């Protein structure tokens, strides 16, 4: 532990409180633009008949959107390793349950 009380991910620099990743308005605005673009793409793609791939493409885009929300808006990218390990573990648990149920459902 540091010898003095300090805030979450903050360092002292230039005499003011600055942050490890310097909380920015611009970066988050860019993430928002990406998310809106992906929403437009997913709606546009829904109009095209991709047959069996329709579900896959929709879920892929949703997964990409989620990763932006989790990494930037929910800050996981800049958080401690422990948070990442926990998150990966939970995603794996969900995946295992989905795959196991899938085996039952798809090969009935």
């Amino acid at each position, binding site marked *: 532990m540091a010898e003095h009380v300090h805030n979450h991910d903050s360092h002292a620099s230039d005499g003011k409180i600055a942050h490890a990743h310097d909380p*920015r308005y611009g970066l988050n*605005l860019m993430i928002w633009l990406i998310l809106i673009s992906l*929403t437009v793409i997913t709606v546009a793609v829904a109009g095209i008949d991709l047959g069996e791939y329709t579900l896959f493409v929709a879920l892929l885009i949703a997964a990409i959107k989620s990763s932006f929300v989790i990494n930037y*808006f929910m800050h996981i990218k800049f958080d401690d390793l*422990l*948070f990442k390990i926990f998150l990966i573990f*939970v995603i794996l648990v969900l995946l295992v*349950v*989905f795959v196991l149920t899938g085996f039952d459902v798809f090969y009935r």
Partner: protein
Amino acid sequence: MSNNSTHVASATHSDGHVHVHRDDYGAKLGMWLFLFTELLLFGGLFILYMAFRVEYIQQFQMAAKELKVYMGGINTIILLTSSLTMVLSIVALQRRNVKGSIFWLVTTITFALGFMVVKYFEWSDKFAHGIYPKGPALMEKSQGEIVFFGLYYTMTGLHGLHVMIGVGLLTAMLIQLKRKKVHPDRFVPLENAGLYWHLVDLIWIFLFPLFYLLH
């Protein structure tokens, strides 16, 4: 651990200061653990959706056509934008701009209420057409379509409940900000409320294509 955490622990001092204990790292970790249980809750419902979709693929595609893409689309944009304003509220507070933080938080709550207004009109329209659990028009449809709308009302309903809880949580944060209980040196409560709000957005990111777009 790393320097990512704040531990403020002090016993009662001789000058009469009360005992203070603060663990921002632990608070955030606790919030994440709660969010994981939420993911598993919705995960179970998504598994149910998957299993029924495989069984009733055609009926699901037919039923999805009944939902208005623009309604779901507007709500997607509302939620994504509210997620941005939520982050801006936290960034403003970290930059010691309390007024800005309050402004963005009020904007976020407004978007959340906007989502519920759109949802209200959407559900009212379906109800008016007899499409609700045990509704006359729905009961005439095929088994697969009945299951689709059952899942639709359950999942978007549970999600809507989370939106309303989110509004309550964010309003509580607004009061805390105004009372200076949450301030630039203690922003973890706002961060945790934000995490909850982003989870609500995250779930909608999957609900929207699964119910509105796959037809």
